[in-house]
């Protein structure tokens, strides 16, 4: 069966159990992500239903499923990448009151957290919505613990959560339909949302993808916005609001496409809402590479959606690791395929995610300012650049963990701290985590850098140094990095600063930056490199035209 035919089955309004089981897709190969499953009801039936989704996305999972355990004792713990607590809460609610449930669960989460720094997903349900809300609040309070609310999922999908008839045989109260929907959510949203790198942009074909028909043949008024295409476009606009870039890659005449988006006021997506448009007759692989460059992201964080199987194959063949989806004739399937694409769905949408699109838009204006400025200093002055440093900001930990794990270009050591490790670091007196917020008169870029350091005698060891791509190309690297170091209380008295360098596939910008400060003309090899603290003090005198603020924590 062809990939696009499989897509129609997996992302049908409601997938059929027999069709899912008959797909028989090849098992994904490569290094498997390990998942510990701690459960008190049947997980195996859901696990079987997850297989076709995981095979479709080529994501190999290796499960270590515990025996049935109402006490969540986590015995026989082995290291894994993700912890999944698959829990029938009714077994607990029959025995103790809800306040005791909350207290007990917090204790169990902490117990599991003491064994792992990885993400923990608590998949369960509570019939009373106030109980669900309290569990949600509890998990939000704890780093990298997420509540997968099965009741909410079933309500959203309009399927019954419980089937009392079968619980005696199946080892679970979950209905057949709830199991199918849960398998899809686990495979496509919940597990990848906690572990896989994010998809940052959509590269969308136009004809028979965003509408029905061919613009060049049917004309502006002839192409059809079906109800399903309307819903698809609305969903794409929703993604844009969460910080996913929309780009258009179409073989058409540019003026025709501009006219289409101008004249067709019924289209929810407007021309200006595409961050990049590549309308031409050139190879789509080349067009997508241009889109990646303009968005300053790598091609492996782009999802390309097209109704032409040949185009999808050609782009996949030319761009390694790009994500692709077939735009089905039924746009509701396309919408659900995108909704369920791993890496697009996120546990938390942060304010900084939504700022990304506006910030990129402002880059064109920054370029104009750059052209009229006679020096970099004047450029900073004209833009009104402000950097705000904050040390050990617990309320930003989630964003900082995102930066550690998503930044590929300006990431010197690729240490990739997660939320739990960052919280632990922030509590150590000889360590410091600094976040850097960037704004200018054109836009608020949000938190764009994180630096994690530890002091050893008179030396500051830089363990993690990440600057978001949205801050690159703005001549701000020195101010961000040296400014961060200089304001740290533990920088005082230091004589040396050690930088740890790892070689990644795309972190050349960070390595080049350090290399220039070391006065090295050779490419740096992985290892440790040192700058004198005095050099950093002296360099920091050059930032007169950048407003540098310190957002004090009470404990500083």
């Amino acid at each position, binding site marked *: 069966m062809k990939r696009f035919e499989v897509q129609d089955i997996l992302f049908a309004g409601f997938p*059929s*159990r*027999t069709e899912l*089981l*008959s797909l028989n897709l090849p098992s994904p190969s490569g290094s498997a992500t390990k998942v510990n499953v701690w459960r008190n009801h*049947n997980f*195996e*039936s859901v696990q*079987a239903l997850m297989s076709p989704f995981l095979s479709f996305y080529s994501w190999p999972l290796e499960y270590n499923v515990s025996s049935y355990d109402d006490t969540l004792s986590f015995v026989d713990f082995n290291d894994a990448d993700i912890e999944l607590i698959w829990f029938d809460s009714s077994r607990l609610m029959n025995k103790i009151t809800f306040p005791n449930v909350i207290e007990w669960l917090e204790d169990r989460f902490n117990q599991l957290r003491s064994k792992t720094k990885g993400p923990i997903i608590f998949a369960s349900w509570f019939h009373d919505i106030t109980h669900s809300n309290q569990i949600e609040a509890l998990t939000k309070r704890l780093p990298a613990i997420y509540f997968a609310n099965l009741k909410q999922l079933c309500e959203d999908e309009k399927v019954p959560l419980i089937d*009392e*008839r*079968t619980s005696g*045989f*199946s*080892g679970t109260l979950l209905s*057949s339909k709830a*199991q199918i929907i849960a398998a899809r959510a686990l495979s496509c949203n919940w597990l990848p949302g906690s572990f896989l790198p994010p998809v940052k942009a959509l590269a969308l074909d136009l004809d028979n993808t965003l509408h029905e028909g061919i613009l060049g043949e049917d004309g502006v008024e002839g192409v059809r916005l079906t109800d399903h295409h309307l819903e698809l476009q609305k969903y794409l606009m929703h993604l844009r609001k969460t910080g996913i870039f929309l780009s258009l890659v179409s073989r058409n005449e540019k003026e025709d496409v501009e006219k289409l988006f101008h004249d067709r006021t019924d289209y929810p997506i407007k021309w200006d809402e595409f961050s990049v448009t590549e309308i031409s007759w050139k190879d789509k692989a080349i067009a997508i590479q241009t889109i990646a460059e303009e968005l300053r992201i790598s091609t492996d964080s782009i999802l390309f959606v097209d109704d032409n199987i040949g185009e999808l194959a050609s782009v996949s063949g030319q761009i390694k690791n790009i994500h692709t989806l077939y735009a089905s004739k039924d746009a509701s399937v396309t919408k659900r395929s995108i909704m369920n694409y791993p890496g697009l769905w996120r546990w938390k949408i942060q304010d900084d995610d939504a700022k990304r699109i506006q910030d990129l838009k402002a880059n064109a204006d920054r370029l104009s300012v750059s052209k009229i400025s006679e020096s970099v200093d004047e450029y900073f002055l004209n833009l009104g650049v402000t950097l705000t440093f904050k040390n050990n900001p617990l309320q930003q930990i989630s964003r900082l963990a995102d930066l550690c794990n998503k930044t590929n270009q300006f990431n010197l050591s690729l240490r990739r701290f997660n939320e739990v490790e960052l919280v632990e670091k922030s509590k150590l007196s000889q360590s410091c985590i600094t976040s850097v917020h960037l704004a200018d008169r054109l836009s608020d870029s949000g938190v764009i850098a994180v630096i994690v350091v530890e002091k050893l005698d008179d030396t500051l060891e830089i363990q993690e140094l990440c600057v978001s791509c949205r801050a690159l190309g703005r001549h701000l690297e020195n101010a961000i990095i040296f400014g961060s170091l200089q304001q740290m209380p533990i920088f005082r008295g230091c004589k040396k600063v050690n930088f740890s360098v790892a070689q990644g596939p795309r972190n050349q910008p960070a390595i080049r930056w350090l290399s220039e400060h070391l006065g090295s003309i050779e490419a740096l090899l992985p290892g440790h490199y040192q700058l004198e603290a005095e050099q950093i003090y002296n360099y920091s005198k050059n930032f007169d035209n950048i407003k540098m603020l310190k957002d004090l924590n009470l404990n500083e």
Partner: protein
Amino acid sequence: MNEKEIENKILKVLTLVLKIEADGKTSRQSHFEWDSLKHIEIIFAIEDELQIQFPEDQLSGLDSVQKLVQGVIALHAP
């Protein structure tokens, strides 16, 4: 749908879930793969395939192809 068509649908489900070549004589007694977890998967898959729902008191007794076929026919009886 006649009896033969129902049986064919049920055999298809059994083959899928148990990963065996099922025939009209297949039963829980003859196939160790047909354990309690697989039993409920079979029930769910048949319900899904035929758009039916077996009553709770019949679920444990539907332990062979023949009983499943008769169970479905009984649901369709006027």
